[in-house]
């Protein structure tokens, strides 16, 4: 099944629950009408939160740049010694 089909099925199920809530009036009508809005806003907030948290925890590795420079020097030495042209960039 294509992924979009799974998502559509999920939304149909949620919509069916929402409509049945409207009809049986277990929760007051005014609240039920606003549920989709609550859902969208919550989804948006969740997304923003994930982006913010992810940004704060974004793993960085400045020491790797230093190690890489060392590797480059070692490589250039070996290659020059063995006849590979590493003079130009």
């Amino acid at each position: 099944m294509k992924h979009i089909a799974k998502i559509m099925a999920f939304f149909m199920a949620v919509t069916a629950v929402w409509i049945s809530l409207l009809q049986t009036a277990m929760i007051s009508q005014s609240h039920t009408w606003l549920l989709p809005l609550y859902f969208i806003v919550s989804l948006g907030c969740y997304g923003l939160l994930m982006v913010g948290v992810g940004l704060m925890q974004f793993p960085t590795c400045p020491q790797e740049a230093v190690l890489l420079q060392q590797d480059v020097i070692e490589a250039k030495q070996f290659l020059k010694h063995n006849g590979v042209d590493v003079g130009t960039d």
Partner: protein
Amino acid sequence: MLRQTPVFILQNKNRYSIIVPTYNERLNIALLVFLVFKHIPDVDFEIIIVDDGSPDGTQDIVKQLQQVYGDDRILLRARPKKLGLGTAYIHGLKHASGNFVVIMDADLSHHPKYLPHFIKKQVETGADIVTGTRYVTGGGVHGWTLMRKLTSRGANVLAHTLLWPGVSDLTGSFRLYKKSALEDIISSCVSKGYVFQMEMIVRASRKGYHIEEVPITFVDRVYGSSKLGGSEIVEYLKGLVYLLFTT
């Protein structure tokens, strides 16, 4: 200093074909080859360099490297001009004699020191695909501006919400594949650029392939050329929608 070769290498009967597409990587390709030989000396591998007619003489350097390391270990399979990443992998695959294939970038953002980690993970888990991830503990990025990190994170959250891909790094291109798995997946992928990398891993996930991840560090030396303008973002969104409907 006595170096202990780990068991997963000593008893490893696999052959690894490392495919590296290049365009104007005259210096980097030499450094890369040196580092590969430095970090997996006891592994049976070959490096397949797919050069798209680089004007800076990359192919001459490859020939010099063949003199040093042997033309059975370093294969030059060039193409006349820039023909795209996906087709570069397909071209390299045709000449791959290994039962495993590694794909990696030539510009040293992918460091060969992680190759043993990929191999070990695959041997331990029997995975079909091992993909490098920059976004978990133990991995990381260097050389990205705050803006770049923000768009990367935003893109990641969006893709995860829409696609449920099963991997943490969708656009990464440092991966180890079983050759049969790569051949199977690549035949059904049609996207270009980094959307291609996303398509590969999402299709693999949908097809039920066993995918494992290893943390990698990514040093972006090409400062300023991390192109993320409006058109790239549009391409990305179009790619997401395409993957949403076709995978």
